[in-house]
């Protein structure tokens, strides 16, 4: 049930109509039922898995909260980590390790090992596992109290708008909203939700899917068949495909949640306007980057043990962040480049005696920073999207060869100008006003004109072939 399908909107309409006629307790039970139905539509068998994760984390956190004995508390949190990461590892990395094992066996002349087991990846497992883990860790750290209601906790884990692709919520933010009566649907909530849903659909259907059309062609071709300009178009297209896809999903999730009275965390804030890598990670997939910061980077020591260890922690965090996306060397390289780049930026900022957050002061410097950051991000997307390191290197090599304006380049540039131009101008306006809500605060006629434009674009310029949400596979 994709967010850009009629099926989802039929489901969401029914949920909203019933939901707003119920009291708080019944609302929670009904939302839990709806969320399990939503998840069951992907594959009902994995309902048992999410139910197990929910029950295990509920029980573990309860045990942690019950005792003051630090050893016992540590044992339960370790058990929680082992079980959840074990499940995640089994579904997500088993195939990868098997492939690598067979490669090694092959090089020493041994037969391949076929365990006769093929695992399919449950939708959203990385998202809800991280959300569940953060809860237990927060209870262990004393930052949140253990939930006393299993149905409420189950809803916190499975809340359908953000279940399969985030934002990855924290227990101290979402759980109280589950446990306490929520705001009724007001004009403000409806307006904010509508704005997010409309922009989310535009990002997914108009931007991401149309860019996928271009990007898929480049990444499916042999690198030697492409000239440099075509490769560049493919990389740009993928940069906006993944942005539109993921930011679009997040916006719809947050928008639908607003209509249900929930306030989810912001997940994207115009990331391609970032002037440096640190700022990029403050704007891109914010719920994951803050999760990695709080549950990985800081526990590793953060920046407390000197420069060497800080740099190590940065690289390690980003590499593991890369692996979170999937088991492939391309993701490791993607994370590694981001980590190294954060290290270089940190050292560079220290050298210049400036805080890492402040970019070059002038307008030209700021634009140069934005362009440089965008292109470095694009370099990492090349590895992220490629099927293999060899393909990524092949495309990199092709990037430097035979630049000319082929039909594909002309079409690519024209389509990008047509689809991305107005959107980037809109984001530029938000950036200039330093306000993501700038349109929401504009006169209602402006919003109506914007929505009419969005609907007409959705109608007339949806991509020839609809593409699945990328992040559902993570």
């Amino acid at each position, binding site marked *: 049930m994709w967010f850009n*399908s*009629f*099926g989802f909107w*039929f489901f969401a309409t029914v949920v909203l109509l019933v939901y707003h006629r119920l009291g708080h307790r019944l609302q929670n039970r009904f939302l839990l039922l709806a969320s399990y139905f939503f998840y069951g539509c992907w594959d009902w068998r994995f309902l048992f898995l999410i139910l197990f994760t929910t029950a295990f984390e509920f029980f573990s956190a309860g045990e942690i909260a019950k005792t003051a004995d630090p050893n016992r508390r540590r044992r339960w949190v370790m058990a929680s980590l082992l079980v959840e990461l074990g499940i995640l590892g089994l579904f997500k990395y088993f195939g990868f390790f098997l492939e690598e094992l067979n490669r090694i066996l092959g090089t020493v002349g041994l037969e391949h090992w076929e365990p006769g087991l093929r695992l399919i990846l449950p939708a959203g497992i990385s998202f809800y596992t991280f959300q569940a883990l953060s809860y237990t860790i927060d209870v262990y750290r004393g930052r949140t109290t253990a939930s006393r209601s299993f149905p409420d906790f189950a809803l916190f884990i499975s809340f359908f708008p953000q279940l399969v692709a985030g934002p990855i919520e924290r227990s101290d933010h979402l759980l109280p909203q589950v446990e306490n009566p929520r705001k009724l649907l*007001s*004009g*403000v909530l*409806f*307006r904010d939700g*509508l704005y997010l849903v409309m922009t989310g659909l535009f990002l997914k259907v108009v931007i991401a899917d149309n860019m996928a*059309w*271009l990007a898929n*062609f480049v990444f*499916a071709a042999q690198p030697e068949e492409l000239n440099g300009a075509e490769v560049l178009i493919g990389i740009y297209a993928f940069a906006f495909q993944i942005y539109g896809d993921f930011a679009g999903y997040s916006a719809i999730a947050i928008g639908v949640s607003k209509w249900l009275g929930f306030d989810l965390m912001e997940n994207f804030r115009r990331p391609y306007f970032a002037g440096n890598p640190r700022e990029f990670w403050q704007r891109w997939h914010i719920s994951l980057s803050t999760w990695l910061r709080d549950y990985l980077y800081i526990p590793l020591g953060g920046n407390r043990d000197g420069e060497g260890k800080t740099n190590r922690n940065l690289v390690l965090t980003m590499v593991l962040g890369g692996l979170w996306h999937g088991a492939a060397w391309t993701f490791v390289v993607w994370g590694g480049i981001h980590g190294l780049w954060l290290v270089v930026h940190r050292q560079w900022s220290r050298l210049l005696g400036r805080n890492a957050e402040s970019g070059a002061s002038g307008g030209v410097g700021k634009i140069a920073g934005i362009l440089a950051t965008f292109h470095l991000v694009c370099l990492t997307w090349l590895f992220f999207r490629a099927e293999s390191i060899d393909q990524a290197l092949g495309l990199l090599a092709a990037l430097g060869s035979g630049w000319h304006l*082929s*039909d*594909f380049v*002309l*079409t690519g540039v*024209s*389509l990008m100008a047509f689809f991305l131009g107005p959107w980037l101008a809109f984001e530029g306006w938000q950036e200039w006003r330093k306000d993501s809500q700038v349109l929401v605060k504009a006169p*209602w*006629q402006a*919003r*109506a004109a914007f*929505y*009419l434009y969005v*609907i*007409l674009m959705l*109608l*007339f*310029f*949806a991509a*020839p072939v609809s593409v699945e949400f990328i992040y559902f596979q993570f």
Partner: protein
Amino acid sequence: MRLNEEVKVLLLVGLGLGCFEGLSRQFETRLSADLRQIRSHEEIPEKIAKAEQEGRESVLVLGNSLARAGLREPEIRERFAASHKPDPEVLYLTPDASDVSDWAAAYRRLFPGRHDSPEPSYVLVGTGRNHLEDRKVVSPEKLGAYHAGGSDYGRILRTWLKTTDERARFLIASVSSLFANRERLRPILFYNLIPGYESVAQRLNEGDVAKVMATGPGNASAERFGLLLDSIHLPAERVMVTAIPLPWTYELSPTLLEAAEKREVRVFAEESDRLWPREAFPDGYHLAPDGGAGFTRSVMARLLP
């Protein structure tokens, strides 16, 4: 803030969409030749009735662009003349990119089988490899907006369309021309404004064509084909299914052949299982006029021996 302000936003958006809907209804036939052809289907029963009054017979060619290119009007007339029959009314119900779902629905809507409604004297069904099989409906929008009649809605929603999405698209298109034709603006605009767009679009979609070519004889059911044949209230010898030649050889599925045989309808498939020269298909898919003429003569020789 009151809810009223957002209601005003929605009303204004609705008004804007209403204006575009009006424009679409007014000018839809200017969007494509296919739409002009589809709109002209409404005149088919009238033309058949007129021909009947004049003592002439009528031939309805049912299919898509393959049938349009492969079953040609001059050669159909030629055979009628050779058989000393009056010049027939030759009519085409051949919307682009359509298949048996569209043909069955359109035929049933135009010729509901009442005693007072006219029906063609001959029906030639032109098909490619799997256009007669029960497949995923190619375009629920076109089916809803143009081909299906109200009496078939239940059947289509229950059994032909498989997902909520398809059903929603079918129903919305049945009331909105803007929605039904939403995919037509993109090619018109981009083909004309972006240099090289057409060749790039073909290149980018090459994979889809390759997939079609790679498929073998299907094993899908043939209920819609059966429904079409059952809706044609003519003696079996006046109906013929013709397998139109393609740049590759193919056979119709046994299920289809069985369905035709059960109703004693003849199938002309002699030309599709031999490899035609590539030059016979200048655009890589449709028969050139010469090839079409030759094929039509073979078909008509069988229809009117």
